């Protein structure tokens, strides 16, 4: 018995798809971006260095907050409650779990990932190669329902990133100053905030779960606000992915001394 579109009773059409448009573009480009990020992040978190530019006070979001005694001096904005991190663990593993977890369970990235990496399906009305499919109804994918917990985590991390951004206004003489890095960090924080707040779980929590908006006028306003952002959630997801990589790469380059941060003032 043939499965899928070839199932008995359906119109017998040997061609998989008659689509003539560029349906391959989305899975290919999205897949390439996702794979690049995964590779970059993996390499980067095992580096365990070049995450803090001491003169400029830039901390990369991939290592923030730095909570262990292994952290280089100055990079621990919230103390070092964690003690020594064993060598086999990347020192930024908590940050990584939350950030990767938030993106990995995100409703937009799920679409992006399923389409580009798993081809389930690669594009609409294009048959997928899998024999069986149970989607997110069974373990392990049912875990994706924990998205809201990663959202809470991401919200905390977004606040930490804001704090880091404030600290990045550090002048070379100790007062207030600003470099290109500061601008990059600010843009990144804005994008991260937009991405985090436009999250579907956030939309549900602030008001979506209500049956009667009219009894909760304030939450209705939040919900309306988040709903507006939510329409662009996918865009924010991809933009913030790029800004995180750029921010990290810039700070790494400054910290490693490959480039010098261009100062706007002080």
């Amino acid at each position, binding site marked *: 018995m043939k*499965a*899928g579109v070839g199932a008995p009773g359906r119109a017998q059409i040997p061609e998989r798809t008659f689509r003539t448009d560029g349906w391959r573009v989305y899975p290919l480009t999205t897949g390439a971006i996702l794979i690049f990020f995964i590779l970059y992040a993996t390499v980067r978190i095992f580096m365990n260095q070049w995450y803090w530019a001491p003169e400029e006070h830039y901390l990369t979001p991939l290592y923030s907050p730095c909570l262990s005694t292994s952290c280089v001096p100055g990079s621990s904005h919230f103390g070092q409650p964690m003690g020594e991190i064993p060598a086999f663990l990347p020192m930024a593993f908590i940050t990584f779990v939350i950030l990767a977890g938030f993106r990995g369970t995100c409703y937009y990235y799920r679409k992006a990932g399923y389409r580009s990496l798993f081809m389930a399906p690669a594009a609409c009305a294009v048959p997928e190669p899998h024999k069986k499919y149970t*989607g997110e109804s*069974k373990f392990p994918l049912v875990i994706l329902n924990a998205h*809201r917990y990663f959202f809470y985590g991401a919200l905390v991390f977004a606040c930490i990133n804001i704090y880091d951004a404030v600290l990045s206004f550090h002048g070379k003489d100790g007062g207030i100053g600003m470099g290109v890095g500061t601008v990059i960090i600010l843009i990144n924080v804005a994008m991260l905030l937009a991405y985090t707040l436009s999250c*579907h779980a956030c939309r549900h929590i602030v008001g979506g779960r209500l049956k009667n*908006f009219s009894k909760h006028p304030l939450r209705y306003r939040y919900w309306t606000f988040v709903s507006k952002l939510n329409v662009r959630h996918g865009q924010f997801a991809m933009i913030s992915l790029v800004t995180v990589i750029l921010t990290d790469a810039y700070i790494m380059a400054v910290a490693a001394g490959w480039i010098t941060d261009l100062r706007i003032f002080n």
Partner: protein
Amino acid sequence: MSYKGNFKVWRGDDTSGGLEDFVVEVNEGEVVLDIIHRLQATQAPDLAVRWNCKAGKCGSCSAEINGMPRLLCMTRMSVFTEQETITVTPLRTFPVVRDLVTDVSYNYQKAREVPSFTPPENLGLGEYRMKQRDVERSQEFRKCIECFLCQNTCHVIRDHEENKESFSGPRFLMRIAELEMHPLDTEDRTRDAQDEHGLGYCNITKCCTEVCPEHIKITDNALIPMKERVADRKYDPIVWLGNQLFRRGSHNKH
């Protein structure tokens, strides 16, 4: 103004069939359904096609044009070049009856399995009070014209015949969302959405939204909010604990 267009139209029934070539006149301002009608009137009088209103309001003329699920009456010929060969096939998720007509009874069966609107008992005729902002979410879903393009494009059943039993499809998961967001409905269908109607099968790849001729944001506004409601009920220990402790609403029944 007018040119000869090349068409491939699938003709056949549940036992056999194939694409047939046609060359047919195309005039300015026409839609694909006009061409199918011209074929009926001039070249293939028994070419079967289902249609009603020809204005995108009834959702009868669903088919696949160049591989994309679309309404025949809402696909303008001007989106194609004059040289292009246009392929028209029946929906490929449902059993074919003849030519472009498919048997969509799966959908009517699934519609019956969704517990209906359950009105509050204490309200009489004319006593319903609902604020516009409270009905707006459900109203969006009620724009649905039941063309079943979303059902047809959803890979859960398109590519896996065996899932038809446990999966109701975007149309009826959206129907559940509509009722759950209805300000006066008293029934609770949240658990059923996951356990009986297969919401968990949905992997939010958004093809239903992409093909919806009414531009309903099925995934963002119906399916994901339902997934979040299911998560509240089934997968979120804190919400569960909160409900146990504070006995909020009727949730403690479950």
